[in-house]
């Protein structure tokens, strides 16, 4: 490598390090505040945590019904994930087959993709109220029970399975249902992973929808708990930041473990759109 080329590589590293550092500062600052013992408003703030401790994380459990929010979030996310995988796999399989009206369904899905959920909140709220699903887990998960992006992820995964394999199974007398469960799904594990991760993250982070349909504190999810905690305590306590860290940790972990599947889901949805 010439000297110039080496210099260029170093310059790139330097730029990227500065950018990475800037991107990470907010994470550091919230974590530092969460473990800070002193008055969090002390000025000048210490850049390193002095007497780091975890009291704030314990405090969260006493100051608000944290377990309740956690359980609600987990239940809603679980319903959404299970519904998504089953319904999307079914729809994705249907789209690999030829049938009358296939084009209409495809056009319908693609046009639904262009309607942002936020543009539908008022009637969506009224519809959910008519169905008697306000303040229920099903109502919280309902709009997220199927995702168009993931239907297409399943469709292309199923299409990638060799046709001879499916035909062989059919000759062996397997029913359609069995072909999906025994042949197609085991060969589409990456698609399932993508679907699980995308749905989990969307459902876990969802704020607007639960804000609209859950007035009952017993049914509220973690993002609402966090918002409620903020309005009660303002920014006055480190426990708020401990709460934020606890809520962020699962999605960061999921993302770091399954970055590839997550990005594949986003970009495949992107190119299909």
């Amino acid at each position, binding site marked *: 490598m010439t000297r110039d080329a080496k210099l260029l590589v170093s310059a790139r590293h330097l730029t990227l390090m500065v950018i990475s550092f800037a991107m990470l500062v907010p994470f550091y600052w919230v974590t530092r505040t969460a473990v800070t013992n002193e008055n969090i408003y002390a000025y000048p703030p210490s850049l390193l945590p002095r007497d780091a401790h975890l009291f704030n994380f314990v405090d969260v459990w006493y100051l608000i019904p944290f377990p309740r929010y956690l359980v609600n979030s987990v239940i809603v996310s679980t319903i959404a994930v299970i519904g998504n995988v089953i319904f999307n796999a079914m729809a994705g399989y249907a789209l690999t087959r030829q049938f009358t009206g296939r084009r209409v369904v495809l056009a319908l899905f693609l046009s639904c993709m262009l309607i942002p959920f936020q543009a539908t909140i008022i009637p969506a709220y009224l519809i959910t109220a008519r169905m008697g699903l306000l303040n229920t887990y099903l109502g919280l998960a309902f709009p997220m029970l199927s995702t168009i992006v993931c239907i297409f992820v399943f469709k292309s995964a199923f299409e990638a399975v060799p046709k001879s394999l499916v035909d062989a199974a059919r000759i062996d007398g397997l029913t359609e249902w069995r072909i999906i469960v025994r042949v197609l799904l085991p060969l589409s594990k990456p698609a399932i992973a993508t679907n699980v991760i995308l749905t989990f993250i969307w459902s876990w982070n969802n704020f607007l929808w639960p804000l609209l349909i859950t007035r009952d504190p017993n049914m509220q999810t973690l993002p609402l708990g966090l918002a409620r905690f903020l309005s009660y305590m303002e920014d006055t306590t480190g426990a708020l930041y401990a709460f934020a860290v606890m809520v*962020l940790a699962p999605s960061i972990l999921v993302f770091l473990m399954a970055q590839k599947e997550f990005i594949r889901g986003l970009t495949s949805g992107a190119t299909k759109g």
Partner: protein
Amino acid sequence: MARPSGGWWATRRNRQFALIVCFLLPSLVVFFLYRLLPLGWNVILSFQAWSPLKPAQWIGLENYAEMWAYDDVFWVALKNTLIFIAASPLAIAAALGIALLVNSDLKGAAVYRTIVFLSYPLMAVAVGIIWRWMYDERGGIINYALRASGLTTRPIGFLQDFDWALPSVIFAEVWQVIGFYMIILLTGLQSIPPNLYEAAHIDGAPARARFFRITVPMLRPSLFLCAVVGILNSFGSFDLVYIMTNGGPGHATELLITHIYKSAFVQSKFDYAAALTVVQFGLLVILTVAANRAAGGNVGAVERD
């Protein structure tokens, strides 16, 4: 199999069709109830006077007339939403820079990519809380850095100041979404055939020309996609704005979506909020079509070269 012989069920084709319908039904129900029906109902509602307590009544364009003539907040929210959208090209340009830096055989590129993307999948409510704290007058690291470096002597109330509030919220939003832009652009960069660059290299085209003549035109679809995401984010940033400023101070950070939320779910003016939603959705469609034209039109121009 004991099925009644004859009739509709008898043919294999029909049975298959029934099966396919059953498979599609759950998803279709979800999209009908939560996409198509609401969109249609929303339009109808915007031409009505309606509240949960009184029956609907057709009033034509009255909701829109009220918005146009009497609702000052609507105009502020519209302006802020447009500013919000107008900021996204800057973010996309920055993301393109990062994508170009990361897209090579640079050692550790994957690590940088992960770090830049890390903020994207996070809960916007928590992100809002983090950034409130970053901007805080006493405990925030931004004010501390500004004061310690002597750039300012008095702390800036980023989220309390009428001029600073909107840019501050937009900055936080960009921090969260820039990784997503980068990923889209990176996918686009990786789909450019390398022989194009080799050919340009042999022809002795300078780096600048390679960038504007090959990279940018080939990236058009990805750039268009980023633009759409940027437009959609003016809807999607509800969470962040709600937590960071709730539209304040005054209405300095009011977006159409927060105005819609407050009109419908705080003041119970569902009919009026429906009209606001129609305007916002119309804006979105117009901008998306315009972005599409810009991408498509330019691609044609390059081909003519």
